């Protein structure tokens, strides 16, 4: 158990807990802004005619808080937990980490307030008001420096694949953020700007969220299963495939636009190519799981990673088809795309992060989970909610796209979408309700008298009834 003591010394539990809590706080913001926007599409918006609560503004808070509040905070919690463990070296400074934490929350909150006051920027996922952009970039750079130092200082000469992803992901985050928030705003008008915005939208997913997510998965799954990943070579094939193909794809967000066609074809071909790369990750996960699948019954964290991986397979399979011009004729501009975005951001990376929360929280609280039953309800409510949301919006997208192509009156596409938008609202309520089970469970876990003295000791799942 000497290594346990060592990692406790080099991991700052406070900053992990802080980022995790903040991530879940912004998660609540994301959930409710999403629900309210969904209600607007059903003409049931509860605050009509109020300027700062205009649905158009809330929609931008929804995506902005999802990216910088929910995802960045939860990934930061994982990074602060994982990097010192993989490198045997602490971050640059504990105080520095906590200052960055508060600075980052201030940035995300100011962005939300700025958007509500009408200062949003017209860049998808870059809604952050223009005056906050340089500050946010600076904050991200500080976070990167704090977390890069242990990678540079590590004792082991070999780099585990997680660190490959993190190292490159840090560089990409800085480059992508600067490119997407400054060039289309100040330098490049029109379709040239659209090409860069396309790269930005896609790179933020592919070059920040994806490397952070894959890195997390490659760390968590072997740790939970207590065995190495199936193939280190394959994992590095995946790394170089991602590095090469992902940055090329952005323009697939603007197909059939006046951007030169060769750039559009290039984006389509590299998008199909990346699906092959994605399969290295999926194969590695399922081959690692082979022989240990029984743990899905007893380990909730693994179950989240498994569910996320199934969603990942779905989303990437879908991607290879709907990036083609044939599919784009019908599905572009429709709810199909919205369904896809939710499947990727929440169904895959959100689920993996919820798996990480499930793993980290008892270790941070020093108690075993309060209730297995609540965890199971949380899991099933969220998964079924997301599947309902994905299914209803995908069908809505097909309905809209086909009605438009058939030259039906525009209003017909709204009437045709109504049942699916109702199902989406129901799915949203399901997802929100399920998260409150998680929050209650987390709260009760912290309140119970310490059952396990060593925070890092193996925590057995609490008296599980026949697992659901």
């Amino acid at each position, binding site marked *: 158990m000497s290594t346990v003591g060592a990692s406790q010394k080099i991991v700052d539990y406070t900053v992990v807990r802080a980022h995790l809590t903040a991530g879940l706080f912004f998660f609540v913001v994301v959930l409710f802004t999403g629900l309210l926007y969904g209600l607007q599409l059903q003409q049931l918006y509860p605050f009509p005619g109020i300027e700062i609560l205009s649905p158009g503004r809330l929609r*931008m808070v929804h995506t902005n808080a999802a990216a910088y509040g929910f995802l960045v905070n939860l990934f930061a919690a994982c990074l602060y937990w994982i990097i010192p463990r993989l490198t045997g070296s602490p971050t640059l400074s504990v105080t520095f980490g906590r200052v960055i934490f508060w600075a980052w929350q201030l940035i995300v909150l100011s962005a939300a307030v700025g958007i509500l006051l009408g200062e949003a920027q017209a860049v998808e996922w870059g809604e952050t008001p223009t005056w906050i952009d340089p500050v946010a970039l600076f904050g991200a750079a500080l976070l990167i420096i704090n977390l890069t130092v242990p990678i540079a200082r590590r004792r082991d000469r070999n780099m585990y694949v997680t660190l*490959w992803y993190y190292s*490159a992901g840090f560089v990409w985050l800085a480059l992508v953020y600067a490119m997407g928030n400054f060039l289309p705003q100040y330098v*490049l008008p*029109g379709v040239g700007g659209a090409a860069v915005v396309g790269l930005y939208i896609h790179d933020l997913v592919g070059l920040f969220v994806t490397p952070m997510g894959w890195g997390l998965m490659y760390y968590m799954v072997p740790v939970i299963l207590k065995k190495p990943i199936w193939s280190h070579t394959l994992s590095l094939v995946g790394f170089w495939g991602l590095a090469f193909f992902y940055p090329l794809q952005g323009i697939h967000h603007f197909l059939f636009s006046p951007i030169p066609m060769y750039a559009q074809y290039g984006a389509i071909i590299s998008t199909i190519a990346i699906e092959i790369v994605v399969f290295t990750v999926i194969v590695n996960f399922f081959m690692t799981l082979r022989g240990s699948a029984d743990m899905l019954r007893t380990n909730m964290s693994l179950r989240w990673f498994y569910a996320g991986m199934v969603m990942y397979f779905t989303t990437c399979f879908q991607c290879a088809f709907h990036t083609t011009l044939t599919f784009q004729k019908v599905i572009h501009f429709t709810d199909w795309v919205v369904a896809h975005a939710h499947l990727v951001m929440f169904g895959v990376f959100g689920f993996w992060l919820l798996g990480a929360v499930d793993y980290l929280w008892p270790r941070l609280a020093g108690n075993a989970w309060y209730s297995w039953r609540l965890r199971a309800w949380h899991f099933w409510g969220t998964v079924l909610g997301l599947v309902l949301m994905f299914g209803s919006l995908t069908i809505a997208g097909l309905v809209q796209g086909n009605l438009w192509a058939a030259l039906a009156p525009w209003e017909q596409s709204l009437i045709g979408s109504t049942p699916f938008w109702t199902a989406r609202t129901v799915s949203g309520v399901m997802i929100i309700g399920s998260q409150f089970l998680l929050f209650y469970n987390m709260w009760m876990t912290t309140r119970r008298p310490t059952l396990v003295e060593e925070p890092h000791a193996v925590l057995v799942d609490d008296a599980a009834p026949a697992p659901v």
Partner: protein
Amino acid sequence: MHERFTTVALVAGVGCFALAWCLEAWLPLTHIGRIPVKTLEELAPEPTETFLELAELYPKSFKRAYGEPTADAFHDSLRHARDTYIAEGCWHCHSQFVRPVSNEDIRFGAVSTAAEYQNEMQLPQLLGTRRVGPDLSRSWNKHSTDWHVAHFFEPSWVVPTTVMPNYRWFFDENDEPNRTGIAMVTYVMWLGSWTEDWGDEIDEAGENDS
């Protein structure tokens, strides 16, 4: 040697990113960049009919917001509308980009070209990625000034099935369009006014002088 932070950061991080930037951004930009970028003054030198009409319909409110309907006031209103369009997130439900597929040219009008976007009104670009409501890049000839005023005030009065929120803060205490309201109506009735109207061919034949 190869398993070092700096190697990964430089080769994968910077190298792959730079390669992609060259192929998917710099290269297309060399073509697009040949089209000169216009200022608003070059793009739309004179006030549109809508702007003049609004000055007559709402003289008090118009005078307070813009004074006389001069070219300068017109440019001021369009820039303000562009900023409002961004602040309200209009572009999350309305595109400004007609594709050459799915009968979009029949529904909306002429297919979009790169030159249309090389101007300061598309910095940042407003092509959009989702359509809950229709495309707006050809909205100039779809409805009347009165229709747009009523629509911003309460969309369901003119489109019962609409899911668009109302924009009451575009109106003053007398429910007349304020600085923002006048700007927005001018803007949506300016978008696409440089393209051919459906009726143009008939106009040229002298069979329709409306």
